[in-house]
């Protein structure tokens, strides 16, 4: 009987804290547990008893990187509960805000968190010393997203201008002009980014994923749509966001504060860029579609390492679509639609940079939140990340421990997990029994 422990001091470049424990018996993996701490559960309790107008602001603070996603899913869930809907120019403004967040989040992940894995650097900072121009390009891209979020949301993190029903005030065309100017340059940077990351060396790995992503008849879904689920070969199954609880169930697993999600009873589905691309690539903007084709992506990508290319393509799409909306922008007549509280439940989902983010609220007779349910993308992906790691480690258990640890970090980073806004330590323990 041998016992081997591999410990990673700190898993850098991933949000949150985590520990990975691998139980190996006779050279085979008997168990693998990714332990994560996740704050949304705490927020669900905190939301109870709050006014129906409060969840967008409160849940936006769950994540410093994707607050708009939380705001949009929360707003739409509450509006659904109250029988309201935001359409037309106000919906376009929401899309614009969301594209800004995608650009910010993806640029950060591609340049400072993920690219160093492919170029042999320990960190984005180390990469910056050798590739200053590249990192500056990434920061320039990110800044374009920041400016868009600031112009519409009021500030670059935790936008304060979002409310149930729309916005507190809508920006004028003139106020949006500088953001549009920067986006034009950003789109060129984004196209250069796709070409750059497409040239990386990728491990020859494919997984037979079951994908879950929103689908919208006229858009590469980001803000709303029906939920699509499929393997990227057959036409995906589809269900309404309101039917989410009938299809997606969660179970407590003892090793994590996050719940494991099951889709129609099956564990291990994938949400995020690969899923969106597999189910919706035909709806990318023409420029983004061309960039994807030139990068050799095909219509479905099952190699998790190549998710960096999909993210880069999504930045192109976000810049392109944001520019289209800005070019046609006319100030909405009113900043929001009235949303009167009424008792009942409502569901909302949108595509956070990391994947589908679902919210459900039930309001009581007084218009207060009686129940809140938040299903973040990382919780949905947790079982799938564990499966990726199992496949990765199974034939390599005899490798030196530091090599194993590095491989695991990279495989986890493929999915840009937003584990929490807590400490960021991953301890990897391989227990050989």
């Amino acid at each position, binding site marked *: 009987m041998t016992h081997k422990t591999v410990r990673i001091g700190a898993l850098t*470049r991933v949000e949150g804290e985590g520990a990975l424990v691998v139980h190996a018996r006779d050279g085979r993996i008997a168990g693998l547990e990714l332990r994560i701490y996740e704050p949304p559960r705490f927020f669900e309790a905190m939301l109870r008893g709050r006014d129906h107008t409060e969840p967008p602001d409160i849940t936006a603070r769950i994540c410093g990187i994707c607050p708009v996603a939380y705001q949009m899913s929360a707003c739409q869930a509450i509006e659904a509960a109250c029988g309201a809907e935001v359409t037309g120019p106000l919906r376009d403004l929401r899309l614009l805000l969301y594209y800004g967040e995608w650009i910010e989040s993806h640029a950060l992940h591609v340049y400072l968190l993920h690219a160093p894995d492919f170029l042999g650097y320990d960190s984005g900072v180390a990469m910056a010393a050798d590739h200053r121009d590249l990192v500056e390009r990434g920061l320039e891209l990110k800044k374009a997203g920041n400016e868009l979020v600031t112009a519409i949301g009021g500030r670059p993190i935790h936008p304060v201008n979002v409310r149930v029903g729309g916005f507190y005030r809508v920006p004028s065309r003139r106020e949006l002009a500088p953001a549009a100017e920067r986006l034009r340059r950003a789109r060129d940077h984004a196209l250069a980014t796709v070409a750059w990351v497409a040239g990386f060396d990728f491990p020859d790995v494919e997984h037979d994923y079951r994908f879950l992503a929103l689908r919208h008849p006229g858009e590469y879904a980001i803000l709303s749509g029906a939920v699509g689920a499929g393997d990227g070969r057959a036409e995906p199954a589809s269900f309404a966001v309101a039917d989410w609880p009938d299809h997606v169930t969660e179970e407590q697993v003892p090793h994590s504060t996050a719940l494991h999600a099951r889709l129609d009873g099956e564990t291990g589905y994938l949400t995020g860029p690969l899923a969106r691309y597999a189910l919706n690539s035909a709806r990318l903007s023409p420029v983004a579609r061309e960039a994807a084709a030139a990068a050799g992506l095909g219509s479905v990508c099952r190699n998790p390492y190549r998710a960096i290319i999909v993210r880069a393509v999504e930045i192109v799409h976000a810049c392109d679509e944001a520019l289209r909306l800005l070019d046609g922008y006319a100030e909405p007549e009113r900043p929001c639609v009235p949303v009167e509280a009424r008792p009942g439940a409502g569901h909302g989902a949108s595509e956070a940079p990391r994947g589908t983010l679902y919210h459900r609220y039930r309001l009581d007779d007084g218009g207060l939140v009686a129940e809140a349910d938040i299903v973040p993308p990382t919780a949905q992906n947790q079982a799938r990340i564990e499966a990726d790691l199992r496949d990765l480690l199974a034939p390599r258990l005899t490798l030196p421990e530091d090599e194993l640890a590095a491989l695991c970090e990279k495989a986890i980073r493929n999915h840009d997990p937003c584990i929490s806004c807590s400490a960021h330590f991953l301890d990897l323990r391989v227990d050989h029994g």
Partner: protein
Amino acid sequence: MAETVVVGLGSDLRGDDAAGLEVARRLRGTLPPSVAVVESCGDPAALVEAWSGAALAIVVDAVSSGAPPGTVHMPVPMPLRSRSLAGSHGLGPADAVELGRALGRLPGELVVVGIEGGDFTPGAPMTPPVLAAVRRTARGLRERLTRERPGGPRT
């Protein structure tokens, strides 16, 4: 381009971790136009962006060093031993300093003010000694930044 930038770092919903943000909020609108006030969750790219070209950057953040809660550390020794070091996206202010250095985008002078936190529990309010330290820090910075012409005389 602002000559001086004050950056408040932290998270609003983790108790005393909001100290830096709260100092920034108390300063906003009360300082000369040459001073920019920024709130940040610690994203290094945003930090580098915020202080690029500034003669002086003052970063205020909650810290956890074992000192009594409410203790104000100034300056905090590098690398920054701040709570937000473990913050969003696995990157923090220390990374921002290194990133700024690699890109040649550090401010002329960087001063880090640390406010010792006592309770970082999600959902907890800021504790009274930390609130008092926030008030004290904001008052001190306001006096300094309105008295001095930050970054030297302006023409």
